């Protein structure tokens, strides 16, 4: 029998968690053990009912990601030289250039990947972490927010790849050449740090009710 479609039938009832049943579930493979068991025999992962150290890692990486996002926006991402004239453009400057050329769709993609996604990720991760620290139980929508954040982070890397491709391709001596600026490095770091921050989350914490303070 498939579990599909059964989801709605039991949504109203509170779901019994492994922790409430005095058990611990493996975060990797889902196998269930008596509370206190050290490692999972199926996949070898260390068993913790709720990874409370995860929040420290989340905050540390998030903070690092936010700090390096500042130089990523201040310094130039690309240095374009055409017939001896050098132009430098920042992330946002690159978006405006695309709009000047009439490429609104592509400008929108770059703006989304380089500005909207990183900034909303900072806000979303901080919001989820603060909720957990205040002991507020989350709902399915908080969990879906987490899933979106986890899924979408890697797409911010687009602009770094654009810089790499342009720098490799456009090397025509005097006529035109494109070189990466320092912002490419800090932006790549910012994306990587925020991805690590999101991956550090133990999503099981999102659901917990206040009385279910971790054992």
């Amino acid at each position, binding site marked *: 029998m498939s579990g599909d479609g059964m989801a709605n039938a039991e949504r109203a009832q509170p779901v019994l968690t492994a922790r409430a*049943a005095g058990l611990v579930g493996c975060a990797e493979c889902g196998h269930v053990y008596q509370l206190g068991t050290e490692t999972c025999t199926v996949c070898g992962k260390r068993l913790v009912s709720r990874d409370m150290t995860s929040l420290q890692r989340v905050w540390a990486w998030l903070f690092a990601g936010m700090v390096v996002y500042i130089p990523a926006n201040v310094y130039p991402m690309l240095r374009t030289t055409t017939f001896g004239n050098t132009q430098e453009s920042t992330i946002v400057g690159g978006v405006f250039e695309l709009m000047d050329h009439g490429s609104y769709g592509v400008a929108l993609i770059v703006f989304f990947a380089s500005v909207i996604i990183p900034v909303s990720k900072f806000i979303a991760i901080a919001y989820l972490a603060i909720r957990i620290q205040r002991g507020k139980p989350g709902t399915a929508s908080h969990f879906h927010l987490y899933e979106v954040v986890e899924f979408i982070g890697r797409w911010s890397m687009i602009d770094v790849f654009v810089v790499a491709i342009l720098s490799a391709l*456009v090397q025509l001596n005097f006529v035109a050449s494109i070189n990466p600026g320092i912002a490419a490095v800090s932006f790549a770091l910012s994306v990587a740090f925020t991805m690590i921050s999101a991956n550090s989350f133990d999503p099981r914490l999102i659901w917990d009710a206040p009385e279910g303070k971790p054992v």
Partner: protein
Amino acid sequence: MAYHSQMTDSLSDMIACPKCDGLHRVPQVDIGAQARCVRCGTVLMAPREGAMTRIVMLSMTALILMIAAVFFPFLELSTHGLGRKSSVFDAILAFSDGLMLPLSFAVAALIVVLPITRFVALIYVFAPMALGWAPAKHARSVFKFAEHIRPWAMAEVFIIGVAVALVKVAGLAQVTLGPAFWAFVGLVIITVLKDNFMCRVTVWQTLNARSPS
């Protein structure tokens, strides 16, 4: 399939959702169907007909395409009688001077090294099982590693980057797509197909069931 009654079953009949800790009795799931967590909707089981064979085939195809994608010309640029062909390899070396060198390594890792590592790891884990043998030595650690690097294998993000780059140079010069570009597009499609065949919890259950001891 939520687990509400007294705990009379043995622990191996139960499964805890890795994402929300919801406790479920291991359901009977038909081939082709899937069971989701009642609380958060995460897919807990999704057995597929011949899934392992397909994962192995798709990983092998992806591996071959990747080799073609790296070394064949990727894009060709021409303007004012000047031309330049570049491969993915050149894109990686774009940052090779001075301060940018670490970025070169990062790009190489994200678009080539990690995807290749993942394909090889998946073949190593699934090929013996697809042939009906017991899982290879350390298959569990290798699979755990393959899942761990999954978010960092960014071939599909790179393709969107290529599209944006093409628009950016459109005014500057004429760009022709090389064979490697199409190899890369094929690679991305295959990666998406392959990941659709894989359900992490199901794979762990199969690995566990097929392992000796």
